[in-house]
């Protein structure tokens, strides 16, 4: 059984949602937070319903709907999302009102849209889709958990087309708290200079990326998602990567391109530099977090990137870490870690 990516749609701080350009029209931003470029939501959502929807719900529905439209699928056999923080905007709204109004006369809307499964639920509601619907909320591997669920389900033969997404919204309150926790840089920086110099912290980001995955081959598929693995505090990530490739009958020489989760934080990036001097030595390497920012489900952006690189046979200049001449990669390894605790590996192959 193979898992294919039929289509992908990406709302991000770059122009990734519409148009034919593939990361050629780059948005540069100076600060410590990248905000998503909002699509014209009216194309996807009834304006009456839209008024009450938070940013993450709108981003999620637009990405999900676009993904289904691209594949020409009306009703997926399952809808699975991953999000670490869930619906922050509604959560913060409701908690603020509890404090402000001393628990009295509270309106219910923010509360009912605050549950972590709201995006998946709203997609089901919009599609009138009664099929399997699940939401994973495990920190930096929320998206991977969702995708792993889809891969198992295809393996079980219980579904043919599964909509899987990673969503995260950044609101002022969470940006402030995460800044105080030391996640972001103390000084504004251009996202395009994220990897220059050594300093503590990264830049925040957000987005919604959806994929339609299937076990059916079609020449129009973007790519094959050959394998996915999550690891918690592995003893040696180098050994884990070698084992992961080996279990897929490969070694590092078979990998044409590596996409890493480098985020500009000296400590975070140590492992990528170490690997750059060992198994990733002399390999073409690409990075992506200068484009979408760091957030718990950013690996969904990386998978969108890998799928498009393979399908289009182009490696956009803006993602290249080292100098290498252009080629069409057939096997791409995505390696990301979240705060050095959670590591994930995704192997993406040409059809």
């Amino acid at each position, binding site marked *: 059984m193979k898992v294919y990516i039929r289509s992908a749609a990406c709302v991000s701080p770059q122009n990734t949602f519409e148009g034919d350009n593939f990361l050629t029209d780059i948005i540069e931003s100076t600060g410590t937070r990248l905000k998503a470029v909002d699509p014209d939501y009216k194309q996807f959502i009834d304006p009456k319903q839209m008024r009450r929807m938070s940013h993450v719900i709108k981003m999620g529905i637009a990405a999900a709907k676009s993904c289904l439209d691209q594949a020409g699928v009306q009703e997926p056999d399952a809808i699975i999302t991953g999000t670490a923080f869930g619906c922050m905007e509604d959560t913060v709204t409701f908690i603020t009102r509890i404090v402000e109004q001393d628990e009295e006369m509270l309106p219910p809307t923010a509360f009912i849209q605050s549950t972590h499964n709201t995006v998946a*639920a*709203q997609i089901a509601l919009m599609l009138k889709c009664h099929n399997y619907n699940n939401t994973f909320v495990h920190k930096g591997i929320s998206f991977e958990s969702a995708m792993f669920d889809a891969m198992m389900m295809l393996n079980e033969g219980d579904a043919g087309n599964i909509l899987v997404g990673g969503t995260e919204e950044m609101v002022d309150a969470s940006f402030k708290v995460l800044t105080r926790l030391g996640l972001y840089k103390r000084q504004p920086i251009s996202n395009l200079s994220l990897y220059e110099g050594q300093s503590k912290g990264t830049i925040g980001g957000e987005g919604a990326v959806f994929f339609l995955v299937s076990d059916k081959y079609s020449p129009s598929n973007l790519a094959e998602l050959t394998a996915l693995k999550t690891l918690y505090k592995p003893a040696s990530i180098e050994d884990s990567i070698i084992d992961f490739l080996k279990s897929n009958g490969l070694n590092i020489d078979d990998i044409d391109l590596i996409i890493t989760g480098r985020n500009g934080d000296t400590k975070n990036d140590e492992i990528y530099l170490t690997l750059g001097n060992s198994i990733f030595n002399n390999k073409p390497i690409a990075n992506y977090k200068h484009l979408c920012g760091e957030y718990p489900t950013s690996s969904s952006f990386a998978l969108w990137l890998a799928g498009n690189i393979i399908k289009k046979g182009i490696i956009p200049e803006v993602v290249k870490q080292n100098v290498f001449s252009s080629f069409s990669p057939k096997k791409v390894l995505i390696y990301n870690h979240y705060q050095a605790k959670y590591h994930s590996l995704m192997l993406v192959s040409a059809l």
Partner: protein
Amino acid sequence: MSSSVYIAGVGVISAIGNNVAENLASLKNEHAGMADITQMETIYKGVLPVAEVKLSNEELADRSGLPANISRTALLSGVAAKEALADADIPDFKQWRSGFVSANSVGGMDKSEDFYLDFFKDNNKGKLRNIFDHECGSMTELVADQIGVSDFMSTVSTACSSSANAIFYGARLIKNDVLDIVIAGGTDSLTKFTLNGFNTLMILDKEFCKPFDENREGLNLGEGSGYVVLVSEKVAQTLKKQPYCKLSGYNNSNDAYHQTASSPDGTGSYLAMQGALKKSGLQTTDISYINLHGTGTPNNDSAEGTAIKRLFEKDFPPMSSTKSYTGHTLGASGGIEAVYSVLAIANKLIYPNLRFETKMEELPFEPVKELRKDQDIKHVMSNSFGFGGNCTSLIFSRI
């Protein structure tokens, strides 16, 4: 893919007991756990009854081995997960691939609320250690570290069906040969966030709740945690005692009707129960007992009841809502009720639906009113339905 998944251990903490033995005793003695609020500062103290776990955070910390200053949600989880793993008593636990799949609805919200009181006045204030573990996944991670599971971890959050989906996912991790052992279930502590949230929906009963009663007026919120230890056939063969039962069926369907309300005919509930039966290869007449979602809200019980009426037609199995004991423990309810379902099989019991007085006019059946002992219980269906139309049914089967 056809291999069976066995339940080798159970652990639970709720308003009716701090461990499995205490919960079972309360279920038999018809002892409900609702009372006035004591653990939370809220204007609803003395106004709305809730089903609190009768231990302080310090006492929970003592029992779980976790520090007392973390979220009560993690502390409750720690107590129940530790009990479940000890109960399973798996020889050479470390030689197997093990995972912890836990669920909750609002993560470390109890601590975040404390943080927010200061943060709200000044964004540079508020103790960071109170917000550090806000994420749902942190609850799982804290407990996984404590019980020594690191091969695999994940967290599910689908509102009130969360832990049923965690158990479902855990079973599939075993069936797909990803893991040999999964501790699966969920946890939630009471928070001002959820209490106020449900209060805005005007579905909280000011008296003790009356699930499936014609005169029901809403739910009581509760807290707690429940886990089952799922094992593969291979692990089951090494156990010192026989597993309790099998997880034979499961299904997750979506009502796709409204963000919070259930459809009048209970479409999602119907599809979940029907799908679980299909998965297990069972007929409606095979079900010996239904542990209802049965929150006590007019909407839920009407939708769930209608779905049962449609699916089971004339042969209605005995059924009851144990939320009449524990209140609605939200993200923990599927875990706690999975444990009660397993215990129903192991102890040949059908629990009563407390405080039931008047049959619902729209339904041709009523729940069980008194404890039934020495029952021939082969298959138990456990329902968990939640916001977002998320409906999940599990079926536990005697071996």
